[in-house]
């Protein structure tokens, strides 16, 4: 029995395809949705915990990739270099979770790694490039 956490990036065109239920049925996997951000006509983001036979997990992810879903193991961490961060806050609307948010009083940009799903959208969106992927 293997367990893994995966981030799914959906293109707009795939929002209507029942990817997760197919994975569960065809590959006999249990899934737990940790985080989801899918809206019609926009790119979607889904963080799943998959449990089942290790080989089946691999096959399921290959199938998802073939459908056009890009998948990424949640082994990476996104980190912030506090010396590089200028506290502007352009990242907060890019972050699909609340890992990056602004304190409405102090206007400081707060980063909570526990809420981060390592989607990496903030990395290129940060003007001083303070966000980076750590392996």
């Amino acid at each position, binding site marked *: 029995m293997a367990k893994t956490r995966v981030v799914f990036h959906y293109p707009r065109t795939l929002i209507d395809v029942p990817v997760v239920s197919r994975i569960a049925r065809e590959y006999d996997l249990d899934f737990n949705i940790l985080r989801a951000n899918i809206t019609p*006509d*926009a790119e979607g983001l889904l963080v799943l915990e998959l449990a089942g036979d290790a080989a089946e997990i691999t096959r399921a992810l290959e199938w998802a990739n073939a459908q056009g879903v890009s998948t990424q193991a949640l082994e990476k961490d996104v980190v912030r270099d506090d010396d590089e961060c*200028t*506290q*502007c*806050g*352009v*990242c*907060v*609307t*890019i972050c699909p979770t609340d890992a990056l*948010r*602004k304190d*409405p009083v*102090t*206007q*400081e940009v707060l980063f909570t790694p526990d809420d981060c799903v390592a989607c990496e959208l903030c990395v*290129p*969106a940060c*003007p*001083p*490039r303070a966000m980076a992927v750590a392996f």
Partner: protein
Amino acid sequence: MPKTYEEINAKIKAGEAVVVTAEEIIDIVEEEGAAKAAERVDVVTTGTFAPMCSSGAFLNTGHAHPRLKIQKAWLNDVNAYAGLAAVDLYIGATEATEDDPLNRDHPGDFSYGGGHVIEDLVAGKDVRLKAIAYGTDCYPRKKLDTWINIEDLNEAFLCNPRNAYQNYNVAVNVHADRPIYTYMGTLKPEIGNANYCSAGQLSPLLNDPYYRTIGIGTRIFLGGAQGYVFWQGTQHNPTVERLENGVTKAGAGTLSVVGDLKAMDQRWIRGVSFHGYGVSLNVGLGIPIPVLDEDIVRFTAVRDEDIVAPIVDYSRGYPYSEGGPLGHVSYAELKSGEIEIDGRTVETGALSSYPEAQKIAQLLKEQIEAGEFLLGRPVELIPSVESGLTFKGLKERPVEEEVTADG
């Protein structure tokens, strides 16, 4: 009783000047009234730290042996303008690296450019200078490839033609069904976010909306050093619509500023990259506003609630100059993290760092209190409303090709 620059400077030198930030003055005027505040307070400090694209630096490298008259030059592979004498260069903030794929692989990364070269110079890092020349009798050399360091340059001064915009747009994406990549950051479809870029109540020109104290020779905080205003900025537009309190309802006044790059601090001079757009330079800038009279202190007491910015569509409205703003919102609303547009709640993002603007205003206050920073009395103020100056678009005049007899 109106005060003069000389009186305020005498107090600064004596360590007796009362200096407050543009945040602190709000409560002071509210509690004591403008008349009393104008008597008691001598200087109000402002600050802003944001991408300011129209920025760059003049560098003089000194002459090589044998001499060359630089025709084209690159600093860390970023093209610097060399069409000046022999060894004077101008490195512009938004120049991309020579072999950068730019937006061929859209959206481009733009990880390095002119802004980063300027930051590296300020940080004291060695920068690689490559140059070519065509050779003359007095400048025979044709090639140069060397490391340079800001310490060894004769002059290195930041010289920015347009900084410190008085107010700015709030950018949204109304029409594109994909994210758009702009100088206002990444804008999500269906008005998925709204990005703004001003320090609002701390922003220099929003605190002196008619430029009664700002002109040629005004001494300012620039990138951590003392710099000067030397002209109105390009696109200076004092005649935009204003609220009753004098606040401009859109981008209006701008400043040309200059300062010694060698004295600047990397913290306030930062190269930045805009995904899918290009590179720029974050500049820290602060202006001390002398409280010469009651009107001036009233202007400096402006609050985020009293300053509005226009919401502009960057998918069609801005690029194709279509339509007007979608509405106006105050900086208080913008800073709350959410605004309402057409009945929907939209998350806001900022390009201008408010915490850093606060630090600049505070630092400037401390420098004045310590007698290290004296006010510069402008020899001429920048044009205000009565100048009638407006920011014009380009009127294109089609070029008719000359047709010769043999076609």
